[in-house]
């Protein structure tokens, strides 16, 4: 009990937010994609690619003599671009060629593992870990970061954390308050109905998948140049899948996904804290915690949540 109390600290909650950030970004991407009707298992691979290219571009920025912050910022942009490009492979295969979306996603995930591993070897002549590169460090927000407790939890973090926190209300706003959001949701529920009122189903699906590429790439960048300053092979470690679980858990709603990601982030953070506190539980069990929560979420213990009716089904005119 004492141990448990000792780990419940401000730093635990701050690390909950950090652990939740990549999940949040990817989950928001997943929401846009699935709301438009495309199941996006490729998030895992998109994140991995985002993590790699963020590192790579930040590395070359530094090599060319740019200041660390500029290099890291360029890395972030690079992650967005490459995340988008990889998502477009998925979009092309599942929208244009109407292939099975799960198969396409799995293929992209395997491709991302191979591609990043290969490029690590090819460019950096190393395997396992990349060299260290400039990262995006914590940037305390003036004034707000001075608020006791909350300041340290929310306002003394990497800029990517702020982006993720802002992306939640923004996504909810777009989906539920704008004509664009209405159309994205219509296309995911009943594409034929949308088509008959003159809405371009394909365009909106490309947009949904593209947003998931951008957000997934950002989430990946946070892993390599946000939390750390290196890229490690396979560093996403299933986070793309956990983000998808958060989408389901959160009932395809940004706010719901935020809650789910915070829960998963908390499981991750407490697992680290308990290990550090030297709790007498094998670390393997603690490591399992976030994944067990994921399984519970997927098994639907949270009450029935209904996916967009047309998610996973290719649309033929």
């Amino acid at each position, binding site marked *: 009990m004492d141990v448990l109390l000792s780990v419940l600290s401000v730093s635990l909650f701050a690390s909950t937010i950090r652990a939740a950030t990549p999940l949040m970004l990817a989950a928001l991407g997943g929401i846009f994609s699935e709301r438009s009707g495309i199941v996006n298992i490729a998030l895992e691979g998109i994140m991995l690619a985002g993590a790699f290219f963020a590192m790579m571009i930040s590395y070359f920025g530094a090599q060319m003599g740019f200041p660390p912050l500029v290099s890291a910022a360029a890395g972030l942009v690079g992650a967005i671009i490459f995340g988008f490009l990889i998502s477009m492979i998925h979009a092309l295969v599942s929208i244009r060629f109407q292939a099975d979306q799960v198969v396409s996603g799995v293929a992209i995930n395997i491709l991302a593992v191979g591609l990043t591993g290969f490029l690590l070897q090819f460019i950096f002549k190393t395997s396992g870990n990349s060299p260290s590169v400039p990262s995006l460090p914590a940037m305390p927000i003036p004034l707000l970061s001075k608020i006791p407790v909350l300041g340290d939890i929310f306002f003394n973090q990497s800029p990517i954390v702020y982006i993720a926190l802002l992306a939640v209300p923004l996504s909810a706003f777009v989906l539920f*308050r*704008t*004509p664009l*959001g*209405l*159309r994205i*949701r*219509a296309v995911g*529920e*009943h594409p*034929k*109905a*949308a*088509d*008959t*009122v*003159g*809405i371009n189903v394909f365009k909106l699906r490309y947009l949904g998948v593209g947003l998931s590429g951008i957000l997934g790439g950002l989430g990946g960048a946070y892993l390599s140049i946000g939390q750390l300053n290196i890229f490690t092979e396979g560093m996403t470690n299933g986070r793309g899948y956990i983000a998808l679980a958060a989408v389901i858990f959160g009932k395809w709603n940004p706010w719901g996904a935020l809650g789910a990601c915070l829960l998963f982030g908390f499981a991750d953070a407490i697992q680290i804290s308990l290990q550090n506190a030297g709790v007498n539980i094998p670390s393997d069990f603690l490591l399992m915690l976030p994944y067990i929560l994921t399984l519970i979420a997927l098994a639907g213990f949270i009450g029935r949540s*209904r996916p967009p*009716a047309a998610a996973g089904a290719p649309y033929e*005119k």
Partner: protein
Amino acid sequence: MNKKTPVIEMRDMTKVFPGVIANDHINLAVYEGEVLGLLGENGAGKSVLMSVLYGLYPPTEGEIFVRGKQVDITEPKVAIEHGIGMVHQHFMLVPPFTVAENIILGSEPRTGAGTLDIAKAAEDIKALSEKYNLEVDPYAKIEDISVGMAQRVEILKTMYRGAQVLILDEPTAVLTPQEIKGLFKIMRNLTESGVPVIFISHKLKELMEICDRVTVIRRGKMIGTIGIEDASPQVLASMMVGRDVVLEVDKEAGHPKEVTLDVKNIHAVDQNGLPVLNGVSFQVRAGEIVGIAGVAGNGQSELIEVITGLHKAKSGAVQLMGETITNHSAKQIIHGGIATIPEDRHHRGLILDFSIADNGVLGSHDQPPFARWIRRNFDAIKDYADEFIQEFDVRTPNQEALVRNLSGGNQQKVIIAREIGREPNLLIAAQPTRGVDVGAIEFIHKRIIEQRDAGKAVLVISNELDEVMGLSDRILVMFHGEIVGEIPGEEATEDELGLYMAGAKRNTPPSQGGETK
């Protein structure tokens, strides 16, 4: 009238799909102030023609004129811009969205900040619904409203986009007789306020009632346009089919004998645990046809599924010839003597990518003579197939043909051959003529009556009131998972049945609680 410019005119419209000429030089014109009927059998090309007009398919040949001006309609957006509104046979509404969201989708009003202006939408919708007398609740979700209201939403959707002509594709299939009257009133309102209507249907009575002129097509070819004053159901039917058809079901009175099927106080729930059958009791005797009428979705499907072992009853009992078969497996029930023509032939009745011969023995495929021990007997299967293809007049090159490639009517004949071939004690025929053309309907009805006359018990479930009234010796009406009316077949009228179907009338005792006595 013909001196005026038509609001919409299609000239020499031809649409060729690979291997099929769906429309072959069809001419059609609709004028202000009229309802134009478009009549044809299933697969005659009515829907294709209208889909071309609405920009869903590009035409192969032919021209479209809107108020005398030639236009190229490349996609629905362009059709909408030219004031063409279409209500599709299967509603194009997003179920979890509200009425207002569905109506504005694609033409959303925006606030100054660019966000959705739902309040403005609701206001506009209210004004429109008053103008055309189309009552809807803008804030209700589509999944919660009645079919009749969903249809009004569809019509409002077109009006919201400024439609100057309205196409209704088989709009009455899902409505009660009273709702159909309501719809006809709406159609008259529309034509009076300057919006002509194209009414696609194969129901002759309805065409006679509402149309000013009727254009008939058969197998993609234009047969002609006839003024309603020159038409009669008989005339329209022979134009549609190309020969004289018997429209009335011709049958002697039944001679009911012992009770074959006894359903006692059945209760059942759907997969969400919501009640779908609330104490259903009835009997079917040997030598009688009992018909079940009702608006789709009032428990008819679940009732058949419970009787045939595809849906679990929570309480109550089903007895066949005195033996309780409640919740037995489908296989046991088939072997016990119940044959079923399922309501959805693609979903439950056939394996589309199997041959006619294989489909013909489904359910008996493991029984002699079609199987010996673990081996199938292909000779017996083939002989049997050749036999029923002959007897049931299945139009096919041979028994190897895939069922997928048959027309709806011929597919249905394969099922009927198979089910009657079981020599059942009870034949259940659910929507036996859905999507089947007039000629085949006549044939199927004859076969069903033959079964009765051979002393079998027959249970018919249909959304087509004419069919239930024509076939049944006794009619039961289902509403909200209960049987609310029982009427002798010869006394039933459409109006009276409609009242029961809408839940406005009841002549059966209220059902008992959830437990069997």
